[in-house]
């Protein structure tokens, strides 16, 4: 394993001490097969334990280690250090308030995520509906779903909530109400699921406050997404769905049907 040295320029911010974020430089030896996260962990363990950052799985699936690396949102446990030169600039995710150092505020996303109702909505009248207290009687108590129906939404269910897309999207940066790529993709994921009946409810959210139409198809979200979710596709498909929903609501006004979640 050959070793070389690299300098890391890391954003530091402690709300109790600092007015504004500043940067701090660390020169450390790095292994050639390290990811960016390995270097940050090395600094935390061996050089400066006062750095705060989030990480856990180190296998690109928990979604906690997103940061800006040389200005681009990256999943740091997946990003090879060898792709960078001698100076690597690591900042907290763009477009989010910063709690401390490399840690950004995610509660805003959690609210938007919840707003799109990311769960299977079934018509309430359905007799003997399955619930936690009335589980299926056996493995047969499942919906029939063809591989093709699964394929329709599968891609959009792969989102790990890493927030890289939010850090890249120019509309997220400037339009605080915008639901944003991942939240819309996850809502759309349920709209496309053959088991779901909540289309109307979600379309109301999509068309209302936080409108999906704010997206200007910058496509940056899909460029940076580490899981190939292609949220830009989801957002723009959702616009399409919202327009159809709006058009049908003109022709066939829904007498409160949407409130009961049925169709």
């Amino acid at each position: 394993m050959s070793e070389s040295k690299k300098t890391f320029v890391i954003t530091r911010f402690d709300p109790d001490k600092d007015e504004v974020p500043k940067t701090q430089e660390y020169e450390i030896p790095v292994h050639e097969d390290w990811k960016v996260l390995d270097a940050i962990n090395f600094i935390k363990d061996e050089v400066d334990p006062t750095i705060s950052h989030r990480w856990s799985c180190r296998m690109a699936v928990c979604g906690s280690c997103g940061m800006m690396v040389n200005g681009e949102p990256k999943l740091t446990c997946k990003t090879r250090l060898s792709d960078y030169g001698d100076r690597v600039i690591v900042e907290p995710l763009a477009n989010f308030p910063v709690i401390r150092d490399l840690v950004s505020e995610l509660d805003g996303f959690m609210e938007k995520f919840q707003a799109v109702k990311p769960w299977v909505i079934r018509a309430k009248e359905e007799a003997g509906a399955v619930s936690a207290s009335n589980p299926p009687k056996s493995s047969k108590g499942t919906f029939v779903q063809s591989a093709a129906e699964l394929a329709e939404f599968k891609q959009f269910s792969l989102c790990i909530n890493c927030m890289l897309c939010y850090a890249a999207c120019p509309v997220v940066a400037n339009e605080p109400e915008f639901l944003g790529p991942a939240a819309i993709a996850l809502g759309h994921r349920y709209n496309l699921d053959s088991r779901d009946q909540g289309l109307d409810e979600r379309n109301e959210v999509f068309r209302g406050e936080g409108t999906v139409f704010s997206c200007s198809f910058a496509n940056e979200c899909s460029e940076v997404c580490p899981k190939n979710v292609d949220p830009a596709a989801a957002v723009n498909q959702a616009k399409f769905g919202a327009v159809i929903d709006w058009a049908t609501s003109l022709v066939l006004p829904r007498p409160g049907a949407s409130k009961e979640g049925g169709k």
Partner: protein
Amino acid sequence: MRHFLLRIEPVIWLLFGQGLLIGTMLLTGWVLVVGIGVPLGLIDPAALSFDRAHALGSNIIGRLVLAALIVLPLWKGAHHLRHLSIDFRGAERDVVVAPILYGIATVASLLGVLAVARL
């Protein structure tokens, strides 16, 4: 205002989308011939003589095509400019910018329909 903008969003988006799709397709030929070919003398100006042009434009298909040619790009333009404004820290001024842009597009669209109607 914001609420109103949210309500009309689907219509705007439809017009904008068609501006991108149909507008782009129609504009390509239009600009090539009317904007560049004829003025530069690459195409015989006789093709756009008043009589021929009027005959082409005043039948029903001609009217529809010309109306689309005028109206759709306006909405593509207005909507994209609104986005551009938002992209430059424009969320607050949007309640002013959007009505102005959509206002221009609306007035020009009405004039466009009128222009086609009186052919």
